[in-house]
C-alpha cells in the first residue's frame, strides 16, 4: 500500500462512478491498477526478473554451469572488464551466477507462495464458513503444523526425502509449503470470521443468497486482501527461508544456483570480500520489494471498501 493518498483514491472512485460501468471486481481493479505508478514500476521489475529467470543467456554470455569458466586462483577478484561483478569464492563469474540464480529463487518463492496461499486460503475459508466441526478439526491440524518450527520442520522434511531423486528445488517448495500454509489459513479464517459478522453479509443472507454466492461474492473478496498482503511479504520470507535451508545444507544443492545458496556461500568471508554476498542479497531484496509493491497495489485495487 505504498501508493496514493486517501484523496486520490476517492478521486479514482468518483472516476469510476462517473463512468457508471457495472464492471466486475477484477475488471475494476485492473482499471484502477493501470494508473498506479508503483504497480507499473513493480510490473516492469518483475517482468525483467522473470525474463532473467526464463532466459538468463540474454543477459550474460558466460555459462556458470561450465566449470571451465571458474578460476580458483582468481577467487574474490574485484570487478574487471568482462566480469562486471567480479568473481566469487570459487573464482566463478559473479554476474553470470547472480543472473542464473534468479530462476531458482523466484521459482521457489512463487511456487511456495502460491501453494501456501491456495491451500491455506481454501482451508481457512472452509474452516470459517463451513461448520464448527470442520473448523475444530482443521484448526487442530494447523496447530500441529504451525507449532513445528518452520525451519526445523523443513530441515526434517528436506533431509528425510533428500536421498530420493526428487529435484532439490521441488523438495524445498514441498517442505516450505507443508510448514507455511497455516499462516495463510489463520489469516483467511480470521478475515472471514470478521467479514461474516458484518452487515452486508447478514443482509445478503437475509436476501436469500446461497452459501456459494456469499462465499464467492461477499466473503472471498473481503478476505482475500489480507491473504494477498501476507503472501507478498511471505514471498520474500520463503526466498529467505530457502537461503536458511541452503545454509543448513538441505536447500538448493550445488551445482544448482540460487541467491540463497550464494549468500550462504559468501557469508563467512564477507568481512573482507563483501561483493559475493552483496550482489545476490541486492537482487533478492529488489525481487522481494517488487513483489510487495505489486501485492500492495493489487490489494488497494481489490479492496471493495474503497468503492
Amino acid at each position, binding site marked *: *500500500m*505504498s501508493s*496514493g*493518498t*486517501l484523496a486520490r483514491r476517492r478521486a479514482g472512485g468518483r472516476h469510476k462512478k462517473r463512468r457508471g460501468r457495472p464492471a466486475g471486481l477484477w475488471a475494476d481493479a485492473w482499471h484502477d491498477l493501470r494508473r498506479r505508478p508503483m504497480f507499473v514500476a513493480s510490473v516492469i521489475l518483475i517482468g525483467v526478473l522473470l525474463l532473467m529467470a526464463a532466459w538468463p543467456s540474454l543477459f550474460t554470455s558466460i555459462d556458470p554451469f561450465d566449470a571451465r569458466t571458474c578460476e580458483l586462483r582468481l577467487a574474490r577478484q574485484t570487478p574487471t572488464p568482462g566480469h562486471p561483478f567480479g568473481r566469487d569464492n570459487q573464482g566463478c563469474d559473479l554476474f553470470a551466477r547472480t543472473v542464473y540464480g534468479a530462476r531458482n529463487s523466484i521459482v521457489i518463492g512463487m511456487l511456495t507462495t502460491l501453494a501456501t496461499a491456495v491451500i491455506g486460503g481454501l482451508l481457512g475459508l472452509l474452516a470459517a464458513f463451513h461448520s464448527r466441526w470442520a473448523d*475444530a478439526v482443521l484448526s*487442530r*491440524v494447523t*496447530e*500441529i503444523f*504451525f*507449532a*513445528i*518450527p*518452520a*525451519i*526445523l520442520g523443513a*530441515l*526434517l*522434511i528436506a*533431509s*528425510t526425502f*533428500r*536421498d530420493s531423486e526428487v529435484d532439490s528445488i521441488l523438495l524445498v517448495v514441498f517442505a516450505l509449503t507443508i510448514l507455511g500454509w497455516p499462516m495463510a489459513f*489463520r489469516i483467511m479464517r*480470521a478475515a472471514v*470470521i*470478521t467479514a461474516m*459478522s458484518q452487515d452486508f453479509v447478514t443482509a445478503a443472507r437475509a436476501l436469500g443468497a446461497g452459501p456459494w454466492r456469499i462465499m464467492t461474492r461477499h466473503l472471498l473478496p473481503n478476505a482475500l486482501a*489480507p491473504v494477498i*498482503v501476507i503472501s507478498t*511479504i511471505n514471498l*520474500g*520470507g520463503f526466498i*529467505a527461508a530457502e*537461503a*536458511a535451508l541452503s*545454509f543448513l545444507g538441505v536447500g538448493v544443492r550445488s551445482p544448482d544456483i540460487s541467491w*540463497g545458496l550464494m*549468500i*550462504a556461500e559468501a*557469508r563467512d568471508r*564477507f*568481512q573482507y570480500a563483501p561483493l559475493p*554476498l552483496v550482489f545476490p*542479497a541486492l537482487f*533478492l*531484496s529488489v525481487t*522481494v*520489494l517488487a513483489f*510487495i509493491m505489486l501485492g500492495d497495489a493489487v490489494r488497494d485495487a481489490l*479492496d471493495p*471498501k*474503497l468503492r
Partner: protein
Amino acid sequence: MGRYAIRRLLQAVPVLLGSTLLIFLIVFALPGDPIVSLGGDRRPSPSVVEVLTEQYHLDEPLLVQYWHYIGGVLFRADLGSTYQGVPVADLLASTFQVTLRLTLMALAIEAVVGVGLGVWAALRRGKAVDTMILAATLVLVSVPTLVTGFVLQLVLGVKLKQWTGLDVFPVSGVGDGLRGYILPAFVLAGLSIAYLARLARTSLAEVLRADYIRTAVAKGMPRGRVITRHALRNALIPVVTYLGADVGTLMGGAVITEGIFNLPGLGNLLFRGVYERQQPVVVGVVTLLVLVYIVCNLIVDMLYAVLDPRIRYE
C-alpha cells in the same frame, strides 16, 4: 467462556499425540543410524553400537519404539534420555528458560517497535514518514536473518567494543545475564517487526476509513480521542492475533539466531537433536513447542471475544 477454554484444552490432547507421532515418524525416517553418528568422523566399534542399539530399543519396529516412549511419558513421567544418558526433562527445563526469555524480549521489541511504527505510519499516510517506515520494513523483510545476525554481531558485539572499549552487547552466550539477549532478540524480532508494522498500518488505515470513524469525527470528537477510543481498539485485533501466534513462531524460529549467538535454548537443542537423531529430544522439544503454541492460541481466541464484542464463545 470457562467451558470453552476447557473444551479447547481437551482438544489439545489429540494435537499433542498427533504431533509426537508425526515427529517420531519423521525422525525415524531420517537417513543415518543415530548410534553410528555418535562417533563423528569415527565409527564406534560394533560392540558399542550393539549395546546402545539394544538399550534404546532402536532395533525394534517403529510402533514398539513409540510405545516405549509414550509409555514412559504417560506412566513414569519419563521423557527419555539422550543416547549419552542425559535425561531429556533436564535439558528441556533449562533450554526452555533461555528460549522463553529470548522470545519474550523479542515479543516486547516487536510489540513496541512494530506496532508503534505501524500506527505512526497509518496516521501519517502518504507523508515522508510513512514512506520511510515502509521502506524500512522492506529492508527488514528482504535482508535474511543470517545476514542481519552476523552483521549486528560483528558491528555491535565486536567492533563497538574494539573501537570504544564499551562492553555493551556481549558477542555470544548467556553468561552476562539479560544483556546477552538484547542483540539476538532484535535479530529474531526483525522480520516480525516488519510484518507487524505493515499489519498495524494496513489495519488502522482501513479502520480510519470506516463509517463509524467518519461519524465520530463528524460529531466533533477530537482526533486523538477518535483514534484511541474507536480506531485503535478495532485496528489492533489482527495485531493481537499476530502477536499471539508469533510466540510459537519466534520460539521455533530461534534456531538460526540461537546458533549465531550461541544461546543454549530450545532451538539449539532441537537442531542438535535432529542432527544427532536424538528422537526423545526432538519429540520432547516439539511437543513442548506445540503445547506453548496451543496455549497462546487459546489466549488469542479468548482475546478476540474481549476485544470484539461481536464474537462470543460459549
